[in-house]
């Protein structure tokens, strides 16, 4: 789960990481008031779940509270990569002597949290990583013990020469690790970590991605979710416990299992169609999930035909059939549905579907070819 910069700042500040005072605003007048309280020049930053905010015009340096008002009103409501800006962060403009990068990710290859630090920080860190990876120092942490003081110091020495700054950075590294663990993060990043002309080391930006698997037992972290930053159909799917991602095609897909769902999308493409979504109804056989899935897919006006691809293992295909029948009774589905099901209780499932005049296929290729043809005919 992505959270906003202002939220990540609060989580890292709670660990003691030094940063400039700032606040979040939802209206231009709030932004003006914050700028007045802070005094002096401030930076106004769009809060959206997207990179490249600065390049999109969502980060502005202003000198006065009235300028803050003007620019905040331009940024609020602005679209950045398809997302509407609902909030801005207002922070004092810092004088900067150097910009570094400090990141911590859960690394799948080493199966451990891995620090990545670079003295070449700032907006172009992706380019640094791609072109001069030797400028990024990596260090894997054994999560049983956490980051050792000597490891933090080693990383800090890769950033600074001045020992006071090295010690300050080492402390921030330990605090970042603590924040990573405390908040169930899969990524925590400070970019840039800056030094000021008077020698202080400060975090100017913060990013945290929370491991979705932590949310179940951490309602405090779930509260950080911003529903407005999500595609509405995806938010609805999440509330129905469906794994759903909206795409641009016209073939709606309802599948059990993530791997089979991806393979189904690929097969739609193979036969010349375009999938409208990824949707995994999961292993349970709850007919309610099928109803929710159909409701979400049919709200997409691009969808011209819908494919069910169910391989019954734990999932009982008769439950899915019941869900399809119940859904079509609850609301009108005006596009054709192609159903492929095989496995657990398929005879019963076929009987249920035939009872309402629907057919079921048993072969995946055959079903996908048919749904692609139907979608094309209707398009």
């Amino acid at each position, binding site marked *: 789960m992505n959270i906003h910069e202002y939220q990540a700042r609060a989580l890292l500040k709670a660990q003691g990481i030094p940063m400039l005072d700032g606040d979040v605003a939802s209206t231009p007048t709030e932004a003006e008031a914050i700028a007045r309280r802070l005094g002096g020049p401030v930076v106004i930053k769009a809060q959206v779940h997207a990179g490249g905010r600065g390049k999109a015009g969502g980060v502005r340096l202003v000198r006065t509270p009235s300028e803050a008002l003007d620019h905040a009103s331009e940024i609020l409501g602005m679209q950045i990569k398809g997302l509407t800006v609902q909030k801005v962060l207002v922070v004092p403009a810092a004088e900067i002597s150097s910009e570094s990068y400090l990141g911590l990710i*859960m690394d*799948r*290859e080493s*199966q*451990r*949290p891995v620090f990545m630090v670079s003295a070449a920080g700032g907006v172009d860190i*992706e380019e640094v990583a791609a072109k001069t990876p030797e400028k990024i120092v990596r260090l894997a942490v*054994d*999560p*049983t013990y956490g980051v050792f003081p000597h490891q933090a110091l080693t990383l800090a020495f890769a950033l600074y020469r001045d020992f006071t700054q090295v010690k300050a950075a080492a402390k921030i590294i330990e605090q970042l690790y603590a924040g990573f*663990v405390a908040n*169930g993060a*899969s990524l925590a990043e400070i970019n840039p970590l800056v030094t000021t002309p008077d020698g202080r080391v400060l975090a100017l930006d913060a990013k945290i991605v929370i*491991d*979705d*698997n*932590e949310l*179940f*037992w951490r309602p405090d972290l779930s509260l950080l979710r911003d529903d407005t930053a999500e595609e509405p159909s995806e938010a609805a799917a999440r509330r129905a416990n469906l*794994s759903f*991602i909206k*795409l641009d095609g016209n073939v709606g897909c309802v*599948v*059990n*299992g*993530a*791997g*089979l*769902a*991806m*393979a189904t*999308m*690929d*097969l*739609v*493409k*193979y036969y010349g169609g375009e*999938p409208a979504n*990824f949707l*995994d109804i999961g*292993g349970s056989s709850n007919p309610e999930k099928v109803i929710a899935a159909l409701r979400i897919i049919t709200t997409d006006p691009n969808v011209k035909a819908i494919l069910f691809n169910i*391989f*019954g*293992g*734990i*999932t009982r295909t008769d439950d899915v059939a019941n869900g399809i029948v119940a859904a079509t009774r609850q609301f009108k589905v005006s596009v054709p549905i192609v159903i492929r099901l*095989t*496995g*657990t209780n398929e005879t019963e499932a076929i009987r249920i579907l035939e009872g309402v005049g629907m057919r079921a296929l048993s072969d*995946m*290729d055959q079903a996908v070819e048919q749904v692609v043809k139907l979608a094309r005919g209707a398009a």
Partner: protein
Amino acid sequence: MSVFADAGTRLLVQGITGREGSFHARQMLEYGTRVVAGVTPGKGGQTFEGKVPVFNTVADAVRETGANASVIYVPPMAAAAAIFEAADAGIPLVVCITEGIPVMHMSRVIPFVRSRNVRLIGPNCPGLISPGAQAKIGIIPGNICLPGRVGLVSRSGTLTYEVVHHLTRNASGQSTCVGIGGDPIIGTNFIDCLRAFQDDPATDAIVMIGEIGGTDEQNAAAFVKAHVTKPVAGFIAGQTAPKGRRMGHAGAIISGSSGTAEEKLGAFEAAGIGIMRRPAEVVDLLRGRL
């Protein structure tokens, strides 16, 4: 013969009295798996289905029944603790079915199981099945499998069933099918399974089913090129997946330009692995290579 599970497997079910655990314990018993014990803390002394003794701890179960493998069906927040317990009791093969375990928990589990020489399969996986040995550990439906000589390893569940279904319908039986799981941090990877299949005299050909995200398939392809002499067919799911989005499985995500289907298929091609463009192609590909 088969890999990881065979006729000598004496299985313990952690979470045997729960909804998932009891359902699948029955399925495993029906298939012929030697389920010798169950563990649910607080329910020690009970008997499951009139024949499987239930214990309070894994150590008790091992001492009383000689269990040498464990399958875990406990909820996500208790699953890491269940793996620690099984490893601590000296069980050499632990299969964790549970989906939704926080990745930090797994990051702590891995060094511990390695230090105890435990083979951990999963988490978030369907487990494994060796049809010829009537050994099923997990949730792979037994009725779609057929004893035979194809070894299969996969990151997915139902997609595995789809491929197995094609194999079985065309009389290509399986030595062992292993689902290694869809999470970013897992105990057993493709290479572990490829090595086991290469060394297994009962396996003649190998099918590997990967998906987008990470570098496991690329590393596996390099291993195939260097060490595997048996024919290998490969599939990658997620060719149409958008970047930066988690496709259901926590591990199925393309980050930046890494972990794409093209990258993985390229690695397969370079290693001489036969590429399945659709699941149904598995049969002809293997026939052509055997």
